[in-house]
């Protein structure tokens, strides 16, 4: 795609008109500063073509959207958002992706970085030891099939009943950590086999636990509501539904390949595979996807438990207060049934967010009392060695983006390029010299996730903030990184 194919609507918003390609049903819109757009065009990684492809899906309302952290995915671009009517639209397992409810949780402390600093290396080592990570690695939990099915139905509520959560954790989780449409009978035996031993595990790839220092506060009122204090320690968890979610997605992507012809849907890419939301296939996938989402909520909750225990183990008696309070937990790969205003009418839609975050504005009833006036917290992890952000949703995100915003920095460099250019051990040493304690299971994996492989997260956040689809609250910088 060329720059002249996009029409500039405002400083941070660009549009590809629906006339660009015959099969587009709605225009495609990209949130990007001019600098980010030029980077996207220079990388030329097909992400804008993928955005246009999503605009061809049946039942779409408004626009096919992309956030400034857009980059090449498979099917949908990463950073893509579409809303399809529940009445005559679709649900796409390919659109949600394999890591269903991959998401981020942030925990905040009352302890200053300076107090923790002498124990930081011990803390990172203990977190690596206590939070199972790596390829296919099993967790500490041994569950029966019945217990596992209960977990799939109840998500974080299951974790609360088992003693892995504090009640406030659930209030500060998207959908209170439980999607009620979950139905374990819609998932395969293989998905259960893959997932049953992995509850409470981090996995590998771009998943991580990060210990951060709160570097700057931009909105005092919102930060106070979230308990964020400049200079204090916070922890981020980034992971999803592990092998369970991957199998659920694979099962339905395979199955739908054989049924799509029944519904007369033509797609520009087979990975965009979908079925009508109201069809038996669409409903079965939705129920299975909700089970995988609950798995991910429970998974992050059990990891949060291990992290709290680790803080106690390492810091008790050495610092004044080692307790970690949950700030929020959000998904960034999910399809959700929501109501949004389209052309002056409230319409029920399935909002697909693929590498994008829900960002509901102030007044949203699904938020706990203390957040209702500030808007939903949005957690935006950056790359290792750079900043991460906490934002809040706004009235503009509700009006323009189906209550959505960015989810991270977004990649600019391929994994093969990163491997060629960056040595894992050299990167680890550089991060350590910069004051970041690193514990990683794989040096090659570390190299692929190097900060150079990612966009400038500050520019991404400047863009969503400038466009008004999120508001800055706090900036975090890493002091410890744990990767599988």
């Amino acid at each position, binding site marked *: 795609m060329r720059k002249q194919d996009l029409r500039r609507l405002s400083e941070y918003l660009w549009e590809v008109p629906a006339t660009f390609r015959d099969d587009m049903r709605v225009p495609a819109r990209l949130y990007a500063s001019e600098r980010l757009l030029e980077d996207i065009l220079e*990388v030329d990684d097909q992400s804008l073509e993928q955005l246009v492809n999503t605009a061809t899906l049946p039942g779409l309302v408004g626009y096919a959207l992309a956030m400034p952290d857009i980059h090449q995915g*498979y099917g949908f671009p990463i950073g893509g958002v579409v809303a399809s009517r529940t009445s005559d639209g679709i649900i796409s397992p390919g659109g949600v992706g394999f*890591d269903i409810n991959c998401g981020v949780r942030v925990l905040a402390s009352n302890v200053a970085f300076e107090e923790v600093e002498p124990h930081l290396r011990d803390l990172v080592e203990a977190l690596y030891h206590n939070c199972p990570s790596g390829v296919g690695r099993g967790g500490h939990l041994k569950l029966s099939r019945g217990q596992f099915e209960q977990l799939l139905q109840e998500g974080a509520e299951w974790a609360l009943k088992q003693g892995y959560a504090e009640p406030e954790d659930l209030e500060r989780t998207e959908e209170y950590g439980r999607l009620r449409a979950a139905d374990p009978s819609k998932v395969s035996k293989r998905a259960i086999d893959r997932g049953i031993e992995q509850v409470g595990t981090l996995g590998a790839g771009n998943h991580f636990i990060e210990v951060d220092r709160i570097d700057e506060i931009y909105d005092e009122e919102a930060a106070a509501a979230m308990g964020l204090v400049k200079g204090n320690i916070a922890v981020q968890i980034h992971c999803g539904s592990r092998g369970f979610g*991957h199998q659920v997605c694979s099962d339905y992507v395979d199955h739908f390949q*054989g049924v799509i012809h029944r519904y007369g849907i033509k797609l520009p*890419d087979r990975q965009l595979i979908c079925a009508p939301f109201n069809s038996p296939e669409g409903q079965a996938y939705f129920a299975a996807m909700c089970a995988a989402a609950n798995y991910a909520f429970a998974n992050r909750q059990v990891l949060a438990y291990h992290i709290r225990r680790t803080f106690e183990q390492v810091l008790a008696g050495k610092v004044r207060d080692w307790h970690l309070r949950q700030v929020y937990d959000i998904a960034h790969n999910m399809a959700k049934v929501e109501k949004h205003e389209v052309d002056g009418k409230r319409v029920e839609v399935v909002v697909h967010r693929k590498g994008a975050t829900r960002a509901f504005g102030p007044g949203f009833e699904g938020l706990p009392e203390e957040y209702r006036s500030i808007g939903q917290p949005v957690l935006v992890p950056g790359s290792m060695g750079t900043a991460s952000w906490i934002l809040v949703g706004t009235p503009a995100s509700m009006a323009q983006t189906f209550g959505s915003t960015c989810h991270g920095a977004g990649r600019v460099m391929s994994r093969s390029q990163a491997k060629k250019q960056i040595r894992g051990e050299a990167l680890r040493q550089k991060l350590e010299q910069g004051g970041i304690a690193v514990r990683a299971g794989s040096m090659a994996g570390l190299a692929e996730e190097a900060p150079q492989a990612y966009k400038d997260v500050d520019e991404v956040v400047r863009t969503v903030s400038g466009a008004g689809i999120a508001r800055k609250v706090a900036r975090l910088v890493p002091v410890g990184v744990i990767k599988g």
Partner: protein
Amino acid sequence: MAEKPAWEEVNHTADWALRVRGQDLRTLFENAARGMIGLIGGEADPNRSPVSLSIELQAFDWEVLLVKWLAELLYLIEDEGMVFTNVHVQRVEDFSLRAEVSGIPGGRFGKYIKAVTYHNLAIRRTANGYETTIVFDV
């Protein structure tokens, strides 16, 4: 002119992509498996004995068969920790596949593929046989 490689990594911003070639479909499927296994690597447990398995799969087109085949191997890697030592595709016909694979379970892996995708997946005839590009979610 040098012969094109049986598989090679292609640039992809977020994930891994492999271009795979084969003089016939059987070789293409075998090379795809070898390429994917090469991407993941793995360290075998010296105390475990090798095992052999037969795999039989059926689909309704070649692309679906290819995804199912590679997904089956990924499952064995994740579930059994299988470090494959040999992959032999015996037969590929009528959208079905039969293969014999050997490996050592209980291995350790530094890298991980979440899934095999259908992104722009198409098996094409070329002057020298068949070619395809497979994108893996990592």
